[in-house]
């Protein structure tokens, strides 16, 4: 986001394009409505979870003991690393180093897939131990909240694959950067949501 801090040119030459207006948000401003609405939905889910938890603490604690916390911790690390890679990819794209940006996007996609595979494995373990969506209100929230999050992640992976191809083609259009920033913002949202999901569902007692 270095370009946001640059001073506007003091006296632009006549044939220079007008200075880019300082933007408050990366990507498309309208897209942030989507991000805000999505974040609000999760906020509501977290609120409902906490509300139900406060009235059935023992049920929730009992359910939580059945979760694979180390796997959740590994996935946290995976997502944080992926976010960091993608942020570096955006910086590279701003520097017009598209080859490096593409490599970093590939890395992010791979880490996203690692997250998804670990999550599916985790579901497999839970389901084969007899825990389903209707076992208890804890497992209802566990499967629904992490399931909706996983769907977000899958959409994010697909979006990044498409963006990766576009970045590699390197058309030089500023619109491409805006699309890339939108995708990256969405990916950071996925990461941020997990930062709430992991402590709330896996750790909080």
């Amino acid at each position, binding site marked *: 986001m270095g370009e946001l801090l640059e001073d506007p040119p003091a006296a632009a030459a006549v044939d220079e394009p007008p200075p880019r207006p300082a933007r408050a948000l990366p990507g498309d401003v*309208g897209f942030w409505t989507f991000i805000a609405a999505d974040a609000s939905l999760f906020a509501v889910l977290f609120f409902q979870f906490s509300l139900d938890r406060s009235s059935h603490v023992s049920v929730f604690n009992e359910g939580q003991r059945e979760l694979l916390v180390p796997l959740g911790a590994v996935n946290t690390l995976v997502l944080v690393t992926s976010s960091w890679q993608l942020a570096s990819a955006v910086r590279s794209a701003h520097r017009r180093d598209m080859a490096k940006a593409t490599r970093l996007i590939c890395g992010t996609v791979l880490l996203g897939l690692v997250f998804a595979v670990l999550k599916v494995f985790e579901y497999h373990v839970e389901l084969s131990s007899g825990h389903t969506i209707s076992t208890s*209100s804890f497992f209802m929230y566990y499967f629904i909240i992490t399931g909706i999050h996983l769907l977000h992640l899958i959409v994010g992976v697909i979006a990044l694959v498409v963006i990766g191809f576009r970045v590699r083609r390197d058309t030089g259009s500023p619109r491409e950067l805006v699309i890339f920033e939108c995708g990256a913002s969405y990916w950071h949202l996925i990461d941020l949501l997990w930062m709430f999901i992991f402590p709330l569902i896996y750790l909080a007692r």
Partner: protein
Amino acid sequence: MEAEEAKQVRLCALSGALFVFLFAFGWGFLGRNIPPYLPSMPAEELAAIYRDNASTLRIGFALGAFGTTFLVTWAIGLFRVMVKMERGGQLLSYAQLIGGTLTAFVPMFACFFWLTAAFRPEQDPAIIRMLFDLGWLTIDLGFGVTLVQYVAFGIVAMRDKREKPLFPKWLAWLGIWIALEFLVELIMPYFRSGPFSWSGLIAYWIPFFLPFIWIVAVTVYMYLAANRLNEEHESATAVPVAGPVAS
């Protein structure tokens, strides 16, 4: 857009407001659906409510079903505005039109099921409850066509290249988000209580009230868009006057 068509589009826009009013008053208020009865309510209790309030329920659901007509006229008006925005064909405009037209059938049929329950409320409570369930499952799970409408509109509205777009980008994205949030309804049939049941926060309050707000907002911008498209048409067809033209 010619003046005559702009006038028709404005009327279509207003019909969206009429839908919101008729449906909220008929289905919501008279139909006693705000808040809805719980899916866990015993059949006898539900049948007693239908018996005691049969008259208001009948007029409510009849009005609600009729009100959905104006979702169709609204989608037609929106289609005409979208045609003037869409680049590279009209596929998405048609997707919106057909999605919007079919959307009207979803609450309409749901109202018919509830109306059938209120028509003979003295019958077996189990049948009343079955019709009641059918209404809710229809209105909650018929979102697919609405998803097509909202997403098609969103894509066209966000790609509007005008310096000041006819519809704000946030409205386009909000519609897309609402449409995707409808997918949560897929898990609704698993629950008879809690936030994911048809009376819950996630499956009722959010997916039922946000679309109403969205429709009202789109209605306002559609009305203004008709005026702007007419102005665009007038200025494009105006005979050039000799001498410099201001702005």
